[in-house]
């Protein structure tokens, strides 16, 4: 087990290095220049552009630029092109903004997907099953931003309360209770919207897992023993059906970062996804690369974690 963990960890480190080199090359080779050195900006003088390019190391060969990026990243001196602010604190600050949205959306997905999926599996072929299948596919196929706009317009039109951003502005001196409730309310709509697709997909998984388990011999045995249906479903079947979902926890890790770019943009949520999106628009290489690097590291860590988790919960699996 430990040998596996160490070997796997080292492999992933090498992989991370390869990913970072590739990402670095792609970002730099893609067309477009950082907006600070955009030659089509009529206000910029060629001499200024030259100076800025040198300060950003943009004239150096790619491997040197990669070296500078890595050096600055690990010494914590890496700065954004756009406003010369240090990158890591900036990402951390935005990450803290994204975190509540992520937690809330995840809670909604995981608490709602299971009951709907299980119910559909138990009443296979019923009107409920067919209806929920239809809705699930509809939610998967309708673009999230479109639904969000409809939702925003409907909520604002019907209830007349603000839904954009992390909080209502101008509440700084209000009672803390009102401020907390205001923040929760601002979480509700964006997290529901970003959870919808998740619910749809996860509930489909739950349904098919349950169906598979229910048709197993041991479930028939349990029923034959005369156990009541609820015990059969929730005690015997559900536990086994849950196994594959444990691994999904591992995959949650990478979606911490850049989980909901579209929703953050629409809801003017100052989160990590929007930071990345705006960095891409203005070709802010240090930010793009660092977010990408962290995302890659989290993905590798996530898959690693789910491998281990699976071995922990399923005794039939042994890691070697």
């Amino acid at each position, binding site marked *: 087990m430990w040998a596996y963990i160490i070997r796997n960890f080292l492999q992933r480190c090498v992989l991370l290095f390869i990913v970072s080199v590739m990402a670095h090359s792609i970002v730099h080779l893609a067309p477009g220049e950082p907006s600070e050195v955009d*030659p*089509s900006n*009529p*206000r910029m003088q060629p001499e*200024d552009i030259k100076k800025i390019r040198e*300060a950003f190391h943009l004239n150096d060969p790619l491997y040197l630029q990669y070296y500078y990026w890595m050096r600055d990243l690990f010494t914590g001196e890496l700065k954004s092109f756009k*406003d*010369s*602010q240090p990158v890591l604190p*900036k990402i951390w600050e935005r990450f803290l903004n994204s975190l509540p949205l992520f937690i*809330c959306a995840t*809670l*909604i997905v995981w*608490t*709602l997907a*299971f*009951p709907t999926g*299980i119910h559909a599996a138990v009443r296979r072929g019923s009107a409920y099953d067919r209806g929920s299948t239809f809705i699930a596919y509809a939610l998967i196929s309708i673009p999230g931003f479109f639904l969000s*706009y409809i939702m*925003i*317009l409907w909520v*604002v039109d019907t*209830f*007349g*309360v*603000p*839904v*954009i*951003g992390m909080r*209502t*502005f*101008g*509440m*700084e*001196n*209000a*009672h803390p*209770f*009102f401020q907390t*409730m*205001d923040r*929760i*309310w601002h*979480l*509700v709509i964006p*997290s529901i919207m970003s959870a919808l697709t998740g619910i749809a997909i996860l509930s489909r998984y739950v349904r098919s897992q349950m169906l598979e388990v229910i048709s197993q011999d041991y479930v028939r045995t349990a029923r034959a023993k005369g156990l009541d249906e*609820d*015990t059969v*479903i*929730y*005690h015997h079947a*559900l536990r086994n059906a849950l196994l594959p979902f444990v691994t999904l926890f591992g995959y949650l890790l990478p979606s911490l970062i850049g989980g909901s770019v579209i929703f953050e*943009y*629409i*809801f*003017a949520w*100052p989160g990590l996804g*929007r*930071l990345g999106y*705006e960095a891409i628009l203005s070709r802010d290489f240090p930010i793009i690369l660092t977010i990408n690097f962290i995302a890659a590291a989290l993905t590798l860590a996530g898959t690693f974690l789910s491998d281990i988790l699976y071995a922990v919960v399923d005794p039939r699996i042994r890691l070697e």
Partner: protein
Amino acid sequence: MKIKWFLIIAPALLSLALLQSYFWVPTYETQTKGNPDRVWKFIEASIGDAKILNPILNADTASGRIVGLVFDSLLDYDEELNRRGRLATDWTITEEAYLIINPDAQFPDGIQVTANAMKARISDAIENGSLPKLKELVTEITLLPKRKRTEEIAIPGADGKPISVEVKVQVPERLQFSLKRVDQNFFKLLEPIIGANYEKNVPIEKWVEVSPQEHQKNLRPQFAEFLPVFEHHPIILFHLRKGVHFHDGHEFDAGDVKFTYEALMNSKNLSPRTSNFEPIKTVEIVDSHTVRVVYKRLFSPAIDAWSIGILPEHLLNEQALQREMDKRGLSKQAKAEFGMRDSQFNRHPIGVGPFRFVKWQGDELIHLIRNDDYWEGAPEYKEFYYRIIPDAITQEVEFRTGAIDTYSPQPHQAVRYKKDDTYQPFSVLGFGYVYIGYNNRRPLFVDKRVRQALGMAINADEIIEYILYGEGEKITGPYPKSTQWYNHKVKQIPYDPKKAQRILAKLGWKKNAQGWLEKEGKIFEFNLITNNGNLQRKAIMTIAQNSWRKIGIKCNTQLFEWAVFLKDFVNSGQFDAVVLGWSMGMDPDLYQIWHSSQAGPQQLNFVGYNSPEVDQLIVQIRQEYDIATQRNLTHQLHSIIAEDQPYTFLYAPRSNLVLDKKIVTMEKDGSYSKIKKTKSGSVFFHFNRWRKLEYTPKF
């Protein structure tokens, strides 16, 4: 069983916990519920974030808005667009004029000119009243002795590298005149004494010496610039307001004004406004609250440059920057390059304006609180928030829920507010206009009648109605309609395609078999281009193409990326016609856009408009310091350009703004009144007196 119940109760509880929060969130009607301070806060939405909060460095709208609240300028414009003092309580504009004594010249009566004779003759003329205009103008005449002056200048060498050249100037005796006001015709008034050809045979070769010698010849045409016979130096004496303090408590004084000027001219700071201050010769501190600004030449728009925010010297001078560098522990290389642009001041500005800066969270908000010590009295609002919402629909949604107090709607959104009396919509005519510019150098467009006919074929009303949703106004000439420079008497070119056809027929353009206008075997065909990315210009291009097709003119249209459009077509003059727009300033100076000397590559008169009459007027206007005279001149200029139609002037767009209806202007007696825009179109003019009520007022 527990699991089953858990699976049902958990989501139900979660949903309840989340959704109940709705009941505590204020709607527009109940904004003060649980939050009575809401009415003391003003929240404005912006599409873009600010870039740099420094009055001499910023160049974008968002930064300009914040800088305008945090900093104050020496002067600005009042409701009627007249200049008014802010940090300057008042100012006087006088002039010092210099006349070179030309020993080779003769007085009109044939006697040789000498310094003393010149001074005596002019003094006598003033004394005995033979030149009455001079008497009230001149306060003092001084004879200045000869002196030497050396200048280092750089000239382009043969291989393109600049060469440094030394110019020695033997300044001869001069007469210095102190004038009560600026008068560009001062030396004309002296003509009866000095004669009409005084400046003709000045022995300038004797006075100017270039070393190394070989460049003497090349520089000969510029000698007159080193030593002009007639020199005007306008002088502004600013009296500054006393007892004004920066937000950190430091007192504002003349040193800050001088420092701001020096920072603007410091090439290390790369200020985008340097050119506005270039005509200044010196800025002198007379005493702690008096500043004397001497200009190099007559240039009346230069005074408007002082509507720039004044920087605090004590926070940005060399020592302060040095302290900041040491504190931040910068590397050696970073220190060498460190300048005002790198200072943290630009993210945390300190000025003397009505609002103090508190914090700036990138892409989210900028927060200001009111300056209780503001010299004009503290603003009514306690806090100001500038919220960045990058999307027009989201802005509208937030506005309707009362989460923001104002924003600038798009034309199609503005239409909705007009029908809705829940809000206060404003429609303001801006300082810009949109036009079709014809390359006046092309044989096709040389005749002004052709340009007039082209203009007659286009229906500007239709463009305003269908492209701008009515949010625009027709214009006739080059000045913003809300300024006094605009000549309202000039008649609009009518929309009359039939007349256009008649005019062209008179000029020999006949319809051929395919329906195109033809003259001497050539059909009337040209290319109309504009930049990509501006949907309005693109639509105008199509409308123009279609309108001209109707009268038999073949117009081909094309879109180019902005950089390509400028480089390959506009700057090099390689185009037939363009759709473009200008954004104008308050001043009446049109030199860069319309003077014939500005028609070279990279210059703004890219249509190559050339009219000696207009050139003369433009120069007169920028040298005139009397506003009434200036107005007469601009009206003349306007009508000439309107007649010549080097552009087809299409429209001036209106910009829109909506305000929460609960916001009113407080009067001095404690009553309130409805917010009105000023004559100049500024809605925010009385912003410091605005307040939000807890209820919707009825007017």
